[in-house]
């Protein structure tokens, strides 16, 4: 059958679906697209769904705007493939290969259906722009999928990293781990204040052993948390200041005046016990002073 100016694509997609699918799958595996990470069956399923949608959309004769409603099935399949690819750690190139590997089988068939060079060039140009658009779409969706993963992880980290631990009646501790930025400090401060209320805490120990660097900004954030806790009637003790950090703070001119600082969480806890009129007693009735200082 010959096409005189008309597009041969719908005809190929409809007439040679199974044949095309088989060849496409072969190309996908040989070019190392989704190979390995996605089971062959799943790949076949998705590829078939894609071709069906493609054939359907091609009927409408719209080969330029893939945002049109008739392309929605194709877009959905691509979204599914890209998201999964992103989640399973495939590279954008690997995901895009899903679409681009369709070019060769498609081109071969178009070449068979057309018999003059000008027509062939026109047909190929049509298909190639279309497939390129679809390929770029997968990359875009892949990127979006990755961003979703990153956002979710960021939220998780934010929640995970700010536990407030009750050490004793009226004593809570906040072990900080990782770098402190403004956004995180805000969450830390809010959690701390809420927990002070929930535990009726008199003393809050902020342990910064796990904070890698303390610059002026971080120090300022810490002081704000201390001031806010004080306004609510709780005293703050900062513990876990490492020697290098102490030196840096002095160099930077950061003053932690009016804030009790201790080397270790244990020392801070001892102070907290003393402030709340408690002491640790040895089981053998030998009194061990809670506060060593």
């Amino acid at each position: 059958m010959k096409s005189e100016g008309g597009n041969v694509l719908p005809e190929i997609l409809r007439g040679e679906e199974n044949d095309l699918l088989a060849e496409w799958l072969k190309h996908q595996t040989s070019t190392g697209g989704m190979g390995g990470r996605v089971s062959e069956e799943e790949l076949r399923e998705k590829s078939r769904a894609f071709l069906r949608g493609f054939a359907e959309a091609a009927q409408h004769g719209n080969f330029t705007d893939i945002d049109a409603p008739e392309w929605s099935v194709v877009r959905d399949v691509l979204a599914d493939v890209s998201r999964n690819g992103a989640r399973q750690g495939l590279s954008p190139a690997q995901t895009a290969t899903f679409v681009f590997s369709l070019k060769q089988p498609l081109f071969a068939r178009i070449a068979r259906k057309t018999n003059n060079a000008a027509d062939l060039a026109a047909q190929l140009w049509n298909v190639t722009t279309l497939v390129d658009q679809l390929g770029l779409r997968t990359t875009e969706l892949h990127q979006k999928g990755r961003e979703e993963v990153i956002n979710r992880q960021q939220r998780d980290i934010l929640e995970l990293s700010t536990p407030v631990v009750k050490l004793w009646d009226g004593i809570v501790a906040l072990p900080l781990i990782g770098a402190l930025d403004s956004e995180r400090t805000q969450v830390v401060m809010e959690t701390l204040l809420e927990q002070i209320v929930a535990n009726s805490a008199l003393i809050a120990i902020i342990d910064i052993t796990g904070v890698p660097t303390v610059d002026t900004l971080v120090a300022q954030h810490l002081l704000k948390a201390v001031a806010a806790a004080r306004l609510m009637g709780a005293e703050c003790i900062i513990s876990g200041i490492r020697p290098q950090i102490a030196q840096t703070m002095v160099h930077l001119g950061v003053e932690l005046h009016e804030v009790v600082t201790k080397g270790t969480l244990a020392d801070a806890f001892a102070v907290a016990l003393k402030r709340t009129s408690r002491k640790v007693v040895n089981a053998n009735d030998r009194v061990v002073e809670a506060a060593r200082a």
Partner: protein
Amino acid sequence: MIGQRIPILRFGAHLLVSIQVDIDDQMAVQLQDDLSAAIVKAGAHGVMIDISALGVVDSFIGRVLGTIAATSRILDAETVVVGMQPSVAITLVELGLSFKGVRTALNVERGMDLLRATEGEGTTDVDDA
């Protein structure tokens, strides 16, 4: 709501001010006047300001609260601000108001303990023979 006043209650040698509504500027200034007068009149040695129901503060209210507390201290009454909400504490810190020289406590009970503990610390009681 014009003319609404915050009540000042007396218990023992102390005064209790419980702010149960979101106060406006007018009420805050009124409270400042009323409280300083009440301290002198009652000869109070301690003042407790309960702001647990206060959900929103602006810089003006924050400053007035600070002024009230500072004034009470000058009038020889130990001042304790109790029950500050976390959101209010954060706001005040961000506004740069730290309530210097004012004692704070988590709730009324703790505030009362604090006042009792300071009782007689600075004052020389003359016992009747």
